[in-house]
């Protein structure tokens, strides 16, 4: 960082010009800081505060029944017996545990396969990257259409092999698998690009030296590529975990949480608790607080890893 506001000589009193120069960086920061405060930091504090009360969304000062009631950490204790919450929390953790490693494996495979710097491979990378430009909502629509029981392309292809009418989105287990597949498909291109950037920064002579020593491709991959790619892999994994905990939009158009509540993950549960049930805003805030702690720990880990990178 540079020292820019250097005064020719120390001036005692405040002149308008000097005041302006001192205030300038603060003025530049004002819009961003104000917006982040109003729409992020203040709501966070208010949300954590709300988690200590039993209340609805709207509080009317004149109507006593809407007044919040302080309950301390009771909401958090109640969360333990709240089946909808615990189920959606475990479903979300399960989703993270399955989807993130799968996405890493897929994007790593894609990156290694499509890394060559030729026009043809650049074109293929473009095609693979394109889903990252589409909203998760539409990705859900595309795949809901592909997964359709009696109208979908996937079941048609399967029927050619004698497998008929797989109820992809009507069966509880298959629907969860479908959400994983679609989530991985939607994010693979983006993560592939991060890994390709990492791959191109690995010096070529390492592979040449290995080839002279007759090292197998697989050993080159595990002994050169993986260790040197580790920083990029960490970025993909940690970003992936954070994104996976927030999985929601995709589900809206793919399964709407069904069948039953099979694909209701945390965010949807928080939203439904807050807006679809009476006087449960405090409980929803407590659920949000739990997710906040999870995400905070993950973000701090991510920043640590990011700082370690050269």
């Amino acid at each position, binding site marked *: *960082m*540079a020292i*820019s*506001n250097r005064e020719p000589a120390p001036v005692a009193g405040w002149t308008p010009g000097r005041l*302006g120069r001192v205030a*300038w*960086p603060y003025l530049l*920061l004002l*819009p*961003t*800081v104000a*917006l*982040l405060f109003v*729409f*992020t*930091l203040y*709501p*966070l504090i208010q949300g954590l505060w709300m988690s200590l009360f039993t209340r609805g969304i709207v509080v009317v000062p004149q109507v006593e029944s809407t007044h919040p009631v302080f309950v301390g950490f009771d909401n958090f204790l109640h969360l333990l017996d709240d089946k909808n919450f615990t189920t959606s929390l475990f479903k979300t953790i399960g989703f993270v545990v399955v989807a993130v490693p799968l996405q890493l494996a897929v994007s790593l495979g894609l990156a290694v*396969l*499509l890394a060559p710097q030729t026009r043809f491979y650049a074109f*293929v990378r473009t*095609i*693979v990257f*394109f*889903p990252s*430009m589409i*909203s*998760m*909502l*539409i990705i859900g*629509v595309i*795949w*809901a*259409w*592909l997964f359709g029981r009696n*109208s979908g*392309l996937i079941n048609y292809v399967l*029927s050619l092999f004698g497998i008929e009418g797989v109820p992809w989105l009507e069966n509880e287990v298959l629907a969860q698998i479908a959400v994983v597949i679609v989530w991985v*498909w939607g994010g693979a*291109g*983006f993560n592939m*690009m*991060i890994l*390709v*950037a990492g791959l191109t*920064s690995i010096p070529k002579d390492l592979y040449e030296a290995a080839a002279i020593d007759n090292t197998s491709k697989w050993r080159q991959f595990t002994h050169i590529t993986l260790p040197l790619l580790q920083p*990029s892999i960490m*970025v993909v994994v940690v970003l992936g975990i954070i994104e996976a905990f*927030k999985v929601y*939009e995709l589900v809206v*158009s793919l399964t*709407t949480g069904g069948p039953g509540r099979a694909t209701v993950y945390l965010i949807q549960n928080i939203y439904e608790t807050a807006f679809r049930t009476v006087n449960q805003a405090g409980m*929803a805030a407590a659920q949000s607080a739990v*997710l*906040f702690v999870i*995400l*905070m720990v993950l*973000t*701090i880990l991510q920043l640590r890893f*990011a700082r370690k990178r050269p």
Partner: protein
Amino acid sequence: MTKTNTIGRSIAVGAVLLLFALPPIWLLLSSLKSQAEIFQWPPSLWPQQPTLQSYIDTFSRANFLQYFQNSAVVSVLSALLSVTISVMAGYALAKFRFKGDTFFFLLIMSALMVPLQIVLIPVFLVLRDLGLLNTLAGVIIAPAATPSGVFLMRQYIVSIPDSLLEAARIDRTPEWRILLRIVVPLALPAIGTLLAFNLVWRWNDYLWPFLIITEQQNWTVQLALANSVGRFGIDWPRLLSISVMSVIPMLVIFIALQKTLMNGLMAGAAKE
């Protein structure tokens, strides 16, 4: 490389192409089929009688043009606002030393830990108190400040030589002119990247409009789309045609700015 290796690689690349290109193409092809053909079993791979009927129905029945216009207004204005304030904040953090500079940097970055998903209710209340509920202004202003945008601009502006700014100050150039005439032109590549990213983010965004907009006339395309998906009975022809139309602007941006977007991402990933 051995011959089997090359063949194996070609097959793998072919499979990847099919896996990633086919779903969007299938969406497009299906949207061009007639009502009867769309549900035909076995499905026809290529539309036998291509028709724009689904699109015509969508445009005539719903206020689709209105939703499209809302989305366009929201994404363009919000992206411009976001880039403007990110350049300002990024410049302040990159080129000035002042009381609390580290504090403000950490304050802005700490917002990374608070995605909208976990503050839905309080944000809803703030929007209500500010009178922004059910307004496009709310969807434009509320998501505009982004830590990632500030960070990107800061990283880029740091590389602008101080001597240029000092020379301008010796000439008694006003500070706002230094920003507009020196910093902004030199940061144009980063500004372009950030603008492109913001257009994509805002166009594709669902959660903010979902939280803010209640009346149908203010729907964005994504909201119209989400509201066409019900637990019971989906109007597929309508849904497919809306999806295609909402992807087209992204396709255009992607084709036009593909290098900017993909290289920007790679530069960002390499720098982080």
